[in-house]
């Protein structure tokens, strides 16, 4: 490290400011009185009754605050749309190794990862994980293929965009169905089932499937656009 360059006067002044800020923040936050009773406690109380989902975080993400998740998915969509716009897909893959060992390894790993991803999605209401995590795992499987298969492998654009589009629409339609069937948007419209079983949690399962599908499509697309970046 070149000390002279790193420790310029300006840098030192900024460091002083930042440390003052941090210290003041610390001084306030160290004496923080946490709320005795919070929304989360409320959720834990009614979770079993209203969702029958074994994973309380999942019920929050998909049911109590399903709208936030819809927003999150939209943001992901938006930024990956932006990535696709700014980095148009080229034909050349950045990683072209032609390594047979890797090739075989990935061929074996790919279905396993897909399966694992589907498992994580489907068990989102029972164990840690869910649509988002599972979706990324599935996309990871495709990423591995990009890394090994070189220029030849590409996603079928139509399939990706359709699954992305339909899953997003499905999420919204599910929300709107709540208005038609129940009395408000994003409400439970399916039987809740029993806590701890695969088919429980009502709409939670469905929402996570949609989210998983959408996230996997989007992240795969992101991976493809980054890996096959067109040289402008």
């Amino acid at each position, binding site marked *: 490290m070149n000390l002279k360059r790193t420790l310029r006067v300006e840098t030192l002044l900024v460091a002083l400011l930042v440390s003052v800020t941090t210290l003041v923040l610390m001084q306030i936050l160290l004496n923080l009185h946490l709320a005795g009773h919070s929304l*989360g406690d409320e*959720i834990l109380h009614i979770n*079993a009754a209203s969702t029958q989902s074994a994973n309380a975080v999942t019920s929050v993400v998909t049911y*109590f605050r399903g709208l*936030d998740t819809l927003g999150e998915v939209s943001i992901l969509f938006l930024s*990956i749309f*932006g990535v696709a716009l*700014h980095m148009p897909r080229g034909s050349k893959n950045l990683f072209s190794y032609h390594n047979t060992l890797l090739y075989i390894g990935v061929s074996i790993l790919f279905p396993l990862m897909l399966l694992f991803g589907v498992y994580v999605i489907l068990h989102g209401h029972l164990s840690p994980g869910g649509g988002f995590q599972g979706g990324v795992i599935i996309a990871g499987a495709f990423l591995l293929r990009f890394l090994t298969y070189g220029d030849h492998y590409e996603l079928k654009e139509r399939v990706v965009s359709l699954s992305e589009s339909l899953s997003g629409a499905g999420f919204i339609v599910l929300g709107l169905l709540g208005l038609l069937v129940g009395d408000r948007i994003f409400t439970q419209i399916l039987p809740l089932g029993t806590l701890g079983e695969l088919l429980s949690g009502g709409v939670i399962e469905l929402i996570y499937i949609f989210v998983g599908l959408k996230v996997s499509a989007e992240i795969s697309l992101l991976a493809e656009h980054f890996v096959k970046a067109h040289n402008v």
Partner: protein
Amino acid sequence: MFDSLHPLITMISLAIFGVALLGVLVKKNLFKIFLAFSVAESALFLFFIGNHYTPGLKAPIAADGITRFDPAFMVDPLPQAMILTTIVIGIAVSALGLSMVIRYYKLTGHMRIDKMDELGEEQ
């Protein structure tokens, strides 16, 4: 051994936040700046999740013999859900930002924030 973990978590995560903020303010490389933002966000997450954790409390998941949801022995699920959402948003923003930086680099040949002078009165 400590009264509570919270002061430590608060102090160290704020320190990380400060370091990241310093990076945002003094580093001239756009890539570095986006990295620093990610670190700053992570520091906030650690602060938030850490402050909602009390040793001994379990994850809010009914499994492994736990069948009843009770705030007395489970941590608050809401912050976790919030952070989950925020992490995704954070990475989405970073990806978009980096794609812009890459494109900008290809257009101009640099990615230094102090050399970005395309805009202004004279242009």
